């Protein structure tokens, strides 16, 4: 397809040249100039958009806060000043021809507003000029302990769903923008940090599995190295018009992060600090020793083995949850200075350093981040400038094995909820009690689970990440309106994970000490060259265009070494050679590289101030795609109609903004890992005469046609602003269809290969989003102010096609339980749960007899009162056609029993101001999703293999408690051995008070003598209340990783913490 490639590239050029070639006439007019300052701090504010209302004439303030608007028609003009994070203001002014009128404006800080500047890919636009769907978030990170930048997005924007895959300090979060579309690939959005695109793939960047099954544990969060306090603004690009400029990487949405830049004329020093206390928000209510002993006795008597514990009161009573949970501190200190000179060769700077320290609510877990950032801008004359951004950070995480496995592989949390309360922590000889080896009675057959205290306090699992993200650019104005910019950036990351299991742990006991070290070095370089052009042909026509070429190269070098059988536990992982593992230490290493070359183009054209056109295209060439499909073109087109600028709308002055938007276009998801399109030969040894020889064999077949997944998205939106910005509303409805889905397709066995990755299959995501902001009380005219923002998102996900097969199962959900994984089936949402449907408890003998007469159970011959009924749905298919109930529970009765995808998500922000006081809150909600709570496989079982939840025993069915919530003792619900039943699914809906903050502006008269200008003190509560029916620690969970299969499963997850922090922000 070389001809289309050249065409698509060339198409960008004429439009650009046409725009450049024309010149505009300039009339005699006046000028307005002035200084924009912060109303409270008094500091100049750069990047303020100052416009003449009702025209396209305007300017932006420079780094010194000064602005000049040329070509202002003489007469009375209304001037509007607006900037992200400030309330817009308008003032009336009279302009005289040929003269400069001075207008200084003071802006008040505020939340999201109608007409802020919005950062988009390769540029910035006024919100009212946008044709695409872009959500803006101004994070409140200096007031809430925000571990990572993803957390700042929770509940804050429409169409953005943030899942806390693990609540552990440094644990990964997972983001879906308008639903997931890839089955096998990465569904996380593309991050663009100060112009540097970063593909976030936590699974790939995990330096080691820490000695646990990597496929079933949550990886650490690679973005945790970035300090959220350095963020100035976050933009979420959602529709094709906004994302197609990121081409083959735009399909999962794009999150653009802009860090703080220098802005003031004189240095302003800031100190932001807080400290807080975290505690476990919710615990399981489990049986204590007495309750457990009674449960054992009842179970044993029913089994005919008699009373086991004659005196339950004399048994030890251990509350394992209390032993591993704690109240833990969190603290943050951030120092910064910003400033800059004036004039043609001015320098502007923003420097900051921060230390964030968090101990986890599970003992021994901790997270520490030290970060430094320096942003420098240097003007070189009036037409050029150079700038650089450098971020350096070091993260140390002490991880405690928690999520992801059961039985011998269980983590500390999973073990703590399963361990018998009647066992002491340690034996008489000082060794940890092991449930499987120190059973208090031969009647009990406990599951062999590691001691939770030994897992939390004795395992060493240290993660480190040193990250440098640097970007520098030079910008030169060739002619008025035409700028050339060239940037060079690097993102270097060095991650490590060092793990040791001493003999005091179950795994260490079995292996005589188990050590593993892993490192990954990621090197990512970027060069981008763009030309941008802004021009007004006339009062009626404006053009803003950008075209560019970019190259990116990413190298990932990884190695691991694992050894066991150590003489002692002294050296831990520091001396890997000391192990005497049979067959020697296991060593792996690897190196992958991908490269990306891109041609970028966008033209924004505004006609008559109200018809907005955007055409965007990106041609991406990626080394990851097959040799015959290396280039992909991703175009989009959008149209906006600003109805309020129509003459007929002058009759409705209350309607400040009414705009309709429509966009359509393509973006891609490069889910392919490097080299997947190539045939591989892998090494494998054999022996001759007892001597090992090397061998190589063809391990995979090449697919030169392998390419990106394509998402075609159409979006219709409306923006409405009423009553001077007091009411603003944004609504979007979208349809996304992802085709060429990457799936591992099974090959005929005769090929010698099992599967090959191919582009087959399709998934759709359709939904709508509503955002409403109301300023109910205006704090400027009355002492009390109240602003409320509501957002609501609904997405429906459907698998349309799987390349010939009807369904695919994810691998088993858990290697110990061997339960079937979640299901990908045509016509269903991604990753639904599959198993037997149950229908409540058989309440009495008559009901049991009646059901026995009707349906044969899966095992045994009859149903007992107190059993849970399984629904007889279907018989064996005949000629591939389903048949009805057949009077027996068989595997044919399995069906789809739940969906992990929510029906809707919502967020609600409130801000009250009263004089110097401000109270702000954020609530978020998720509704209609199911969680597969695998902890319940143990916690609601009918035999004492582990401890169980308290109600399972006290509200179990008995002849005298027929209305019970749980089945009879001795009956284990939840699984049939290889399949789950719907008993394990729980409603994952929740409403959470995510944060509530009260802050006060310290009166300036108290500050003056210390030289302080602006100081605020606050108290914040995070995750204080969650309303949910979910029985586990946190309904916001995905213990088995962040992919689209096996999502929404809870296995021994790290518990959510609620946090109270007190902090102060000082400026002088």
């Amino acid at each position, binding site marked *: 397809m070389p001809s289309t490639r050249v065409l698509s590239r060339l198409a960008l050029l004429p439009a650009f040249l046409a725009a450049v070639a024309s010149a505009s006439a300039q009339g005699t007019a006046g000028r307005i100039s002035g200084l924009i300052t912060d109303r409270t701090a008094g500091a100049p504010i750069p990047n303020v958009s100052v416009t003449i209302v009702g025209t396209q004439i305007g300017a932006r303030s420079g780094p010194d806060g000064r602005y000049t608007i040329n070509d202002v028609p003489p007469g009375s003009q209304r001037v509007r000043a607006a900037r992200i994070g400030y309330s817009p203001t308008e003032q009336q002014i009279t302009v005289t021809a040929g003269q400069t009128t001075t207008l200084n404006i003071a802006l008040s800080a505020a939340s999201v507003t109608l007409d802020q500047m919005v950062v988009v890919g390769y540029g910035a636009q006024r919100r009212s000029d946008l044709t695409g769907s872009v959500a803006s978030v101004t994070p409140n990170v200096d007031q809430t302990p925000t571990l990572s930048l993803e957390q700042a997005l929770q509940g804050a924007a429409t169409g953005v769903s943030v899942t806390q895959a693990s609540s552990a300090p440094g644990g990964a979060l997972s983001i879906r923008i308008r639903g997931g579309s890839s089955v096998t690939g990465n569904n996380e959005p593309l991050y663009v940090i100060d112009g540097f695109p970063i593909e976030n793939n936590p699974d790939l960047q995990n330096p080691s599995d820490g000695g646990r099954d990597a496929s079933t544990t949550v990886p650490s969060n690679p973005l945790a190295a970035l300090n959220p306090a350095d963020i100035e603004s976050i933009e979420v690009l959602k529709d094709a018009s906004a994302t197609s400029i990121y081409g083959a990487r735009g399909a999962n949405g794009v999150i653009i992060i802009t860090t703080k830049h220098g802005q003031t004329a004189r240095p302003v020093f800031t100190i932001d600090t807080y400290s807080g206390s975290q505690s476990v928000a919710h615990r399981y209510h489990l049986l204590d020793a007495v309750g457990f002993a009674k449960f054992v006795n009842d179970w044993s008597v029913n089994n005919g083995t008699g009373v086991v514990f004659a005196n339950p009161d004399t048994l030890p009573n251990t509350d394992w949850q209390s032993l591993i949970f704690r109240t833990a501190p969190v603290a943050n200190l951030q120092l910064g200075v910003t400033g800059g000179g004036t004039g043609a060769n001015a320098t502007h700077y923003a420097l900051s350093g921060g230390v964030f320290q968090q101990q986890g609510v599970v003992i021994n877990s901790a997270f520490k981040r030290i970060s430094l950032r320096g942003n420098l801008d240097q003007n070189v004359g009036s037409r050029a400038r150079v700038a650089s951004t450098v971020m350096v950070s070091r993260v140390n995480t002490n991880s405690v094995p928690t999520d992801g496995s059961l039985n011998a592989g269980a983590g500390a949390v999973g073990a703590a909820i399963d361990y018998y309360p009647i066992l002491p922590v340690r034996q008489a000889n000082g060794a940890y009690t092991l449930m499987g080896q120190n059973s208090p009675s031969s009647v009990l057959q406990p599951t062999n689970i590691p001691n939770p205290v030994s897992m939390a306090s004795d395992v060493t699992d240290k993660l480190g990440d040193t990250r440098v993200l640097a970007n520098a650019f030079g910008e030169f104005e060739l*002619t008025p309106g035409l700028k050339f910019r060239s940037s060079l950036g690097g993102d270097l990351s060095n991650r490590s994970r060092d793990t040791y299991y001493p003999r005091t742990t179950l795994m260490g006991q079995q292996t005589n000490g188990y050590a593993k070290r892993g490192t990954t070095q990621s090197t990512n370089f970027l060069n981008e*060259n763009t030309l941008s052009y802004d021009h007004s042909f006339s009062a009626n026509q404006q053009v803003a265009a950008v075209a560019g070429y970019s190259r990116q190269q990413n190298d990932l070098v990884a190695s691991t070494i694992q050894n066991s059988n150590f003489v002692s536990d002294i050296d831990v992982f520091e001396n890997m050679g000391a192990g005497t593992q*049979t067959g020697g230490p296991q060593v792996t290493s690897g190196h992958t590289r991908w490269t990306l*070359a891109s041609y970028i183009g966008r033209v924004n054209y505004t006609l008559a101030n109200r018809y907005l056109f955007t055409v965007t295209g990106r041609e991406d060439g990626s*080394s990851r795609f097959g040799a015959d499909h290396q280039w992909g073109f991703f175009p989009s087109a959008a149209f906006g109609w600003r109805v309020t600028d129509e003459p007929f709308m002058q009759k409705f002055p209350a309607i400040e903004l009414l705009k309709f938007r429509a966009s359509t276009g393509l973006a891609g998801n490069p889910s392919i890992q490097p080299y997947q399109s190539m045939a591989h030969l892998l090494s494998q040894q054999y022996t001759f005469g*007892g001597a090992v020889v090397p061998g190589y*064999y063809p391990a995979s077949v090449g697919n030169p046609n392998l390419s990106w997944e394509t998402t075609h998205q159409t979006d219709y939106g409306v923006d409405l602003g009423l009553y001077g910005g007091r009411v603003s509303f944004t609504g979007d409805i979208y349809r996304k269809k992802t085709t060429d889905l990457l799936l591992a397709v099974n090959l005929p066995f005769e090929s010698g290969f099992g599967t090959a990755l*191919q582009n087959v299959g399709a998934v759709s995501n359709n939904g709508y989003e509503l955002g409403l902001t109301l300023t109910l009380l205006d704090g400027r005219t009355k002492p009390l102010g109240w602003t409320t923002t509501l957002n609501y998102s609904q997405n429906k996900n459907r698998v349309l096609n799987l390349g010939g097969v009807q369904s695919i199962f994810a691998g088993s959900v858990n290697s110990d339980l061997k339960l079937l994984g979640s299901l990908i089936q045509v016509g269903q949402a991604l990753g639904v749960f599959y198993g037997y449907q149950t229908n409540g408890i058989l309440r009495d003998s008559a009901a049991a007899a009646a059901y026995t007469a009707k349906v044969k159970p899966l095992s045994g011959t009859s149903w007992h009162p107190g059993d849970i009924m399984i629904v007889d749905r279907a018989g064996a298919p005949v000629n591939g056609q389903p048949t009805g109930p057949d009077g027996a529970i068989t595997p044919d009765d399995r069906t789809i029993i739940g969906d992990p995808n929510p029906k809707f998500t919502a967020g609600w922000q409130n801000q009250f101001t009263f004089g110097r006081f401000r109270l702000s809150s954020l609530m978020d909600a998720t509704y209609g999703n199911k969680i597969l709570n695998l902890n319940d496989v143990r916690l609601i079982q009918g035999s004492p293999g582990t401890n169980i939840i308290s109600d399972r025993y006290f509200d179990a069915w008995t002849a005298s408690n027929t209305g019970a919530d749980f089945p009879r003792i001795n009956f284990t619900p939840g699984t049939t051995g290889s399949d789950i039943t719907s008993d394990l699914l729980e409603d994952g809906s929740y409403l959470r008070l995510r944060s509530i903050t009260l802050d006060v502006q310290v009166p300036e008269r108290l500050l003056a003598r210390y030289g302080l200008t602006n100081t605020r003190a606050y108290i914040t509560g995070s995750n204080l209340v969650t309303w949910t029916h979910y029985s586990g620690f946190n309904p916001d969970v995905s213990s088995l990783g962040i992919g689209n299969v096996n999502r929404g499963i809870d296995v021994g997850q790290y518990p959510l913490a609620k946090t109270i922090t007190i902090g102060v922000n000082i400026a002088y």
Partner: protein
Amino acid sequence: MRNRMKTVGALGLLAVALACNDKQFLTEQPFDFIGPTNFYRNAGDALAAINGVYADFINSTGDNYYGRNFVMLVEHPTEMWTSRLSATNERSQPDVYSIPVNHSYVQSVWQSAYDAINRANSVLDNVPKIDMDTALRSRIIGEAKFLRATHYFNLVRMYGGVPIKIHATQGLDSLAIPRNTAQEVYALIEQDLKDAIAALPSAKTYTATDVGRASKGAAKTLLAKMYLQRAGTGVGTAADWQNALTYAKQVQSDGDYSLVPDYMTLFDFFGGTVNERNSEVIFDVECIRAPGLGGRISSHMAPTNTAPFLGASTNGSFEAESIWFHTFRTDDRRRAATFVFSWNKNGTVVTWDETKTASQPYASETPFPRKFLDVLMTGTGAEEPNYIILRYAEVLLMIAEASNEVNGGPNAEAYAAINQIRARAGIPSMTPGLSHDLFRDSVFNERRWELSLEGPNGYFDSQRNWAWSKARIEASMAHAKSSTSKFPKANGGPIPDKYHLMPIPQRAIDLNPALAGHQNPGW
């Protein structure tokens, strides 16, 4: 204006210059693995490629092939070995002739054989083009042909005619190949083995670190065995009996191999000594006591994982069937090498005794197998015993069998061959003057005593003497079903006739539309 255009033009040219370079920039460069474009370049690559074909015997197929599934699938359907698991277990299904078309072992053997064939094809496609020592190149090509023949021979015996693929899979197009006939598959095996005989050196010329590679003798032995099978199953003609006899006698006269004096030393891993690379072994799967490089069958031979038996995973998937166990003469030296009668681990001695009751240690109807048992194994997949595919005793038995068929009865040559085997076992010579049929049955009995668990041969031998074998297996199953058995099987026999071949795996048909409608008769 003109300056502006110049600037834009210059930048445009810069972009075009960069764009021309895109192709090089975007070419994927592998670092930590080898791609077909940078492999098959020299003698080292050629050796690594052929070694990779051998690795398919055990390192890459694990349990799926010679490591477990293939051995169980061939041994359990005989009257020799049963599975201790319940009749519905997938390991017991072949034992009681209740194999579903989606049986995972039936599938894994098909899949593993084709995996190995693709590797061999890859060698045959690429190594001839390498500029290297011609003798070594010829040997490697011969090895690849021997290995390809070995795997096709397994396929044709197991499933009958199968799709023939003689080139490595390069792309995703035209992968659906139809079934070839059994005659066509045998013709390919015959040609591959003849080519291998021409190309391969004598086993004696291999240095100590090449022991275990395919040799001229191995190719001749396999060719004789192939002719025997083709004749015995009616696929070939009577001429095949003579062909089998010719090649078996060539192996004998070449003198590369001889019987070791003591049968016990062939399998003496029980005591921990290793005498694997002896004069009798013609071809085997080479194993050492290291993860991934060792055998896997030992863990299925010891009966339980409780003390004093093996500490590692042991699950008693094999146990002798009672009738056959009692056919061993008590003075047959092979009896003690084939079964464990006494077990001593860490000073605890247990002894098998037919009269023991369930609660006593080592209580079972018959003893468990000893042949490939490794008491020093450190874990599954790290067992020392090489799995023997061909050894010289079988050559003698092939001479006896083929000679009896060629001459319409046993002559002195046939008697001499079988009596050599019996003499080493310490039992009397074969009764003279047996009829054609009686001698044939005697050879089959002898093969079962001599070669059980090796090869594997069990089910494939039954195919050559189907009616006789069926009757014996059904009798053994009837006994197992009866109340006297300690491990009764619910649904033993009669054996449907379709079992003279295994089913084409259902999954293979699902994945290859060209196989649809071509399932074996009766399945």
